[in-house]
């Protein structure tokens, strides 16, 4: 076997083991040591890591049913099987006759999950952790409701049919662009990566108000007020870092950073000391790796970490 293939096989083994539930700190140390041995190891491991994560997108696709049926189908006489498959095909055809209006599609993600969906119009959406949406996408209407969580949109351009996202009492209208909408109960955050979108206040008692925000802008809306941050493509890209399986912070208060971690994990971190919650920090983290984050708080910030069950307390 060639040297490159030998390395690739080793790297694949590391990657598979790292995903196991019993992966330990000792194993992580061993992996780090192996990676530090040579740039060739890093090249092989990082390549697989990246491609394997890209393949996460199959999680959004239902498993093909053909394999399931093939085992019992093979016991039937061939002719019966043919008849059966014709029947199935006919049945499917009937169900798939154009139904109007378009059915509402509902999708959700659990804690720590991400999911990619294709809407029928060529648009694609990617759902972050603990999110729920409904969508109605057909020839005449393109509408998505975010019940909770965070969703990134790549909207197929169609000037005749605006794409509308409802989140709480905000309505975001676009023609074709890339942006994300995050909803935490009554707070709605819209980050625009490309193009521009219009944000309307939909609440009944509010006077008609709307704002157009463009690439690099982040709008944070709560109740009747809406704050638009100054143009910063860097901030928008931090805001969208979850799509690459990472969290990125730039001098944010520890309280906010912890709230982000808590979105992705069953174990919940709590800070009671307001002075600690105000400490600023930055960096790049894997959302699922709470332990590494806690170690960093202990080592670099000298904070005290105590655990009881799923609750983790941070103090000085």
């Amino acid at each position: 076997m060639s040297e490159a293939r030998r390395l690739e096989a080793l790297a694949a083994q590391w990657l598979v083991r790292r995903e196991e539930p019993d992966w330990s700190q000792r194993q992580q140390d061993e992996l780090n040591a192996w990676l530090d041995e040579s740039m060739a190891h890093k090249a092989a491991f990082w390549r697989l890591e990246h491609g394997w994560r890209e393949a996460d997108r199959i999680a959004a696709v239902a498993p093909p049913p053909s394999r399931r049926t093939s085992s019992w189908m093979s016991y039937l006489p061939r002719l019966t099987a043919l008849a059966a498959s014709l029947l199935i095909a006919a049945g499917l055809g009937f169900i798939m006759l154009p139904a109007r209006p378009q059915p509402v599609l509902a999708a959700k993600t659990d804690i720590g999950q991400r999911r990619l969906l294709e809407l029928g119009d060529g648009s694609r959406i990617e759902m972050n952790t603990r999110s729920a949406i409904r969508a109605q996408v057909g020839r005449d209407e393109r509408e998505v409701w975010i019940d909770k969580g965070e969703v990134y949109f790549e909207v197929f351009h169609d000037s005749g049919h605006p794409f509308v996202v409802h989140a709480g009492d905000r309505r975001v209208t676009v023609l074709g662009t890339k942006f994300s909408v995050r909803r935490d109960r009554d707070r709605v955050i819209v980050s625009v990566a490309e193009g521009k979108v219009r944000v309307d206040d939909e609440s009944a008692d509010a006077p008609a108000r709307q704002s157009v925000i463009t690439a690099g802008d982040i709008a944070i809306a709560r109740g009747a007020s809406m704050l638009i941050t100054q143009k910063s493509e860097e901030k928008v890209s931090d805001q969208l870092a979850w799509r690459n399986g990472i969290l990125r912070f730039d001098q944010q208060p520890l309280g906010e950073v912890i709230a982000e971690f808590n979105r992705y994990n069953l174990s919940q971190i709590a800070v009671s000391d307001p002075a600690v919650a105000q400490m600023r920090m930055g960096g790049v983290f894997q959302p699922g790796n709470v332990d590494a984050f806690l170690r960093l708080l202990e080592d670099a910030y000298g904070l005290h970490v105590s655990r009881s069950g799923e609750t983790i307390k941070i103090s000085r």
Partner: protein
Amino acid sequence: MFYINEVGRWTQRTMNDANLHRWFQEAVLPNEAMLVRFIRRNWPNSDDVVDIRQDVYEHALIGAQRAIPVTPRAYLLTIARNILLNRARRAKIVSFDLVADLEELDYLAEGYDAENTLVARDQLRRAEAGLDLLPPRCREVVRLRKLEGMSTREVAAHLGVGHHTVERQLTLGMRALVDFMLGGEGRIVRKTATVPPRQEAGHE
């Protein structure tokens, strides 16, 4: 991988390990299809392609520690050219195409842009297609892992096979699927593939 100082965009600063990691995955790997095609076209023996690709990545990472390449595509092709020339010199191969193509590096670097974008937009379909290419048993193991989120132990119990069998199928499937996701053929390569080297012509 974890650090506390401010994280800059990779175009701005010197590379620490986390930046290097990110730069490699975001800026280098999306060019794999182009890189592999370039190697294939300029090297007579297709059995060497994986080794050469790995060499290019290793040197790209080493070089990027010191100075950050602004145009990853041209940077990769330059490294690939040097590696090919060195190998050719050692193997005493002279390929006319190699020399000719090298003068068109810039053109190549630009020309593949549209294609890369297309691949990125199509990742979902690619993931499905890549999965379908795997042999049935391997595909089932990958599917249980990716879709059902099962651990190796759970997959082994579910399929009634040994832990090592699952791990082996999973690593083989992972390597083939990754290859496909990055623009390759997504074929499973088992370890005994030491076919006598084919001497193909140096052009397509």
